């Protein structure tokens, strides 16, 4: 595809308001997924800081916590890795209503639930560095307010384990985006190779490929993914591969049809007459000419992959806890739907819906833009 042409396709795409919005949404989610631990309020790995006292709080909930150093030192990870996989917290978070400093200990009014609290004491040395040992009581209090007291705010509320839903949503976007990318790459690679070969050579090759396609198509997708996960195991990467391995079928079928139509064109005959090799004809002369339909199916496969992953995680054979994924978040909280806390399951549901919808709109817009011949 010529640079000029692809540039103008992109420009035309952005001229459609719906496509521009969809593209913006996708870009935003992708960026959030990439920089998840930088923007997420809770930057522990998998946003897994559980404060059970804060279980199932409404959006906007805000409360004070006391940071108490963990007794076991956490493993140090390099900063660059922290950027991409989060940082283990050195502190335990104790929700408090109030605190006071006594001689060599600190007393807190421990928050358990609204209207319920108890009093616990911590030795002062767990809070203060060695240099601050001989501070006056007033200064000590000041020091603790500055360093050990923090106001925790949960914009989207908390889940049943008292984890920040916003953080889990942002980090969960990684799974959706990654599953889309891996599944699309895998399914398109297999789909293009098999589809192009079947369409181009025809005859027995075509029959063989179509036989595989028809058999795979007769098995329900979820069942097939079950079978594949049973064979290669379940986990983050395995589920991606399983989804990719099932989705190439529709891509292959579409590409086969496109190649069959295109190989009747005179310029393909001309390329054969010029003595070009079959591989060169397929990759240089046929595939660039069906880039449009391939992009459309990539967009729709992306959307399907996100949905299938959410479904699998919901069924419990997808991404494993504590790693957050939108499907898993629904699974963990769908029974709250009939209580007074339906947002727990609705928020990840809406996230899935918006992202899938954006991909489908982008796919449709791509088709509209690319359909116009020679304009």
């Amino acid at each position, binding site marked *: 595809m010529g640079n000029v042409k692809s540039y103008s396709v992109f420009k035309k795409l952005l001229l459609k308001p719906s496509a521009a919005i969809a593209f913006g949404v996708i870009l935003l989610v992708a960026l959030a997924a990439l920089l998840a631990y930088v923007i997420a309020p809770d930057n522990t790995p998998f946003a897994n800081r559980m404060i059970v006292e804060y279980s199932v709080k409404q959006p906007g909930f805000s409360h004070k916590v006391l940071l108490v150093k963990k007794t076991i030192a956490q493993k140090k990870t390099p900063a660059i890795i922290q950027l991409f996989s989060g940082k283990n917290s050195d502190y335990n978070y104790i929700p408090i209503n109030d605190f006071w400093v006594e001689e060599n200990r600190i007393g807190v009014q421990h928050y358990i639930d609204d209207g319920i609290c108890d009093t616990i004491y911590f030795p002062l040395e767990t809070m203060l560095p060695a240099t601050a040992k001989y501070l006056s009581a007033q200064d000590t209090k000041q020091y603790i307010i500055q360093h050990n007291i923090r106001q925790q705010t949960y914009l989207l509320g908390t889940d049943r384990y008292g984890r920040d839903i916003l953080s889990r949503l942002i980090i969960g976007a990684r799974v959706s985006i990654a599953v889309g990318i891996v599944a699309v790459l895998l399914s398109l690679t297999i789909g293009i190779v098999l589809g192009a070969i079947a369409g181009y050579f025809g005859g027995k090759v075509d029959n063989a490929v179509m036989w595989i396609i028809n058999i795979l198509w007769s098995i329900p997708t979820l069942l097939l993914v079950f079978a594949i996960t049973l064979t290669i195991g379940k986990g983050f990467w395995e589920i991606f591969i399983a989804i990719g391995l099932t989705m190439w079928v529709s891509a292959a079928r579409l590409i086969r049809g496109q190649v069959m139509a295109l190989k009747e*064109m*005179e310029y393909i005959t001309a390329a054969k007459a010029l003595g070009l*090799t079959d591989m060169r004809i397929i990759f240089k002369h046929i595939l660039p000419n069906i880039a449009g339909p391939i992009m459309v199916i990539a967009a729709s496969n992306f959307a399907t992959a996100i949905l299938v992953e959410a479904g699998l995680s919901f069924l419990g054979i997808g991404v494993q806890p504590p790693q957050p994924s939108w499907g898993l978040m629904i699974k963990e909280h769908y029974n709250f739907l009939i209580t007074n806390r339906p947002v727990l399951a609705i928020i990840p549901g809406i996230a899935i819906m918006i992202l899938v919808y954006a991909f489908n709109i982008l796919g449709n817009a791509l088709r509209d833009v690319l359909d116009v011949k020679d304009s």
Partner: protein
Amino acid sequence: MPLIEIHKLSVSFPQKGKEDFIAVNNISFSLEKGKVLAIVGESGSGKSLTALALMGLLPKEAAIKGNLIFNLHHQSYPLQSLTTSQWQELRRNHIGMIFQEPMSSLNPVMKIGKQLEETLCIHQNISKRKAKQQTLEWLQKVQLPSPGKTYHKYPHQLSGGQKQRMMIAMAMCNHPALLIADEPTTALDVTVQREIIDLMKSLQLQTGTSMIFITHDLALASMIADEVSVMYRGRQTEYGDATSVFTNPQQPYTKALIACKPNTDNKGKPLPTVQDFLEHKKENKLAYSASSVLSNVLLRVNDLDIYFPENSDWLGRTISFYKAVDKVSFELKQGEVLGLVGESGCGKSTLSKSIMGLLPVTAGSIFYKGKDITHLKADERRKLSTSVQMIFQDPYSSLNPRLTIGELLTEPMRVHKIVESKRLKTEALRLLDLVQLPADAFNRYPHQFSGGQRQRIGIARALSVKPELLICDESVSALDVSIQAQILNLLKQLQQELQLSYLFISHDLSVVHYISDRVLVMQTGEIIERGDATQVLLHPQNEYTKKLIEAMPEMKR
């Protein structure tokens, strides 16, 4: 009072950020009752848009100016200001239309008798029985074989010519005052074209209908028209009585159109082009020297059979074949131009593809320079492709739209290592120069070129591997006559300069005669006549060849 009066008709299309594109510019004509007006022009001349304006079928964005008056039974309809329902009324009862592609105009799941009957019933208030009787009469009138049986056939069971007869019946059965035929015979073979033209002419005389006949073929127009309007780039260059326009054309463009068609007189001489006439160049071109035919045989085809399976039994074994090429033998000497003529479906393209190795051969053999090339391995076949090349019919589909002209030309040279990689560009520019295209074409894409320029690019691409034999499969058939003349001149010139040999395949006998030294005539897979080009054209021996020559539209002078 004339049936139709067109006064200063202009059709223009708005363009983004540019001035309006004027497709039809200020044309005027009138048509009397019972007369035939031919609108002649090449593609893009605005002739079809003029017809669409008369039918009220212009695209929505088109702006129309001028007066169009349709006079009927002492009533005048101003066509430029009719409402949709008035148009429908007019089209339904008074205007009949025949298009180029008959298949797309017929309903494929309805018996053709029923379709015709339906048309009759909608227009005339008659009983079913009477409608059927009229239908059979019309099938008879358009000379379809055994009307009783044809009545029960479906469109796909008819040949192209028969379908066009059907369309004529449907257009004329309600006695329209005006019949508009837009290139009605372009998709048909010459022999069928002749029959259809004769039929239209006789029906038109019988019924006294007025007709507007749109065509790109001046000779065809001369066979049917009373009056002619010649259009060029949206303007009417010449308009008048048919006989006077054809015998004594006033405008250089009309003269050029008449002169640039190959005929018995201009064989061996370069064809004059429209450019020559518009710039008033004197005809001082030198005649070509006779082809220097060497004695060694370049291509020899022996008893070649190519069969396609037609029916197979329940085990998948083929039980009958369609013989596309049947016991064909011929020789092509070095430096010779061998013409191959035949109508569609005679097997001429199958033959050319099998020589290129694009189709498997059933029996027989093909030799190139004494070497058997019938069943070559893939890599040997690839090597051979630098010696034998092909020029295709359709300049629009024979170039990959995603590659620049530079890429198109350098790719085969790089693959076959014709020149060193650093000289690729120089070589490509030399090829562009050879086919008379500007050097800046190198970085452009095929869609930026016209049909004739694209055909030149196709020729340059074929020449890029330095072949000795070129197979031209209907290479000029899809082009306008004036462009056709330029490409024929180019091919002839290249043949002389580069000592090429051609196997020139076409359905058009006059073109084949013009360019070839010897001619083969092919019918249903067999070669039925062969010989010197002029000899075959002037003194054909075979009945089929005679019929073919008879059917060629010839300019009435």
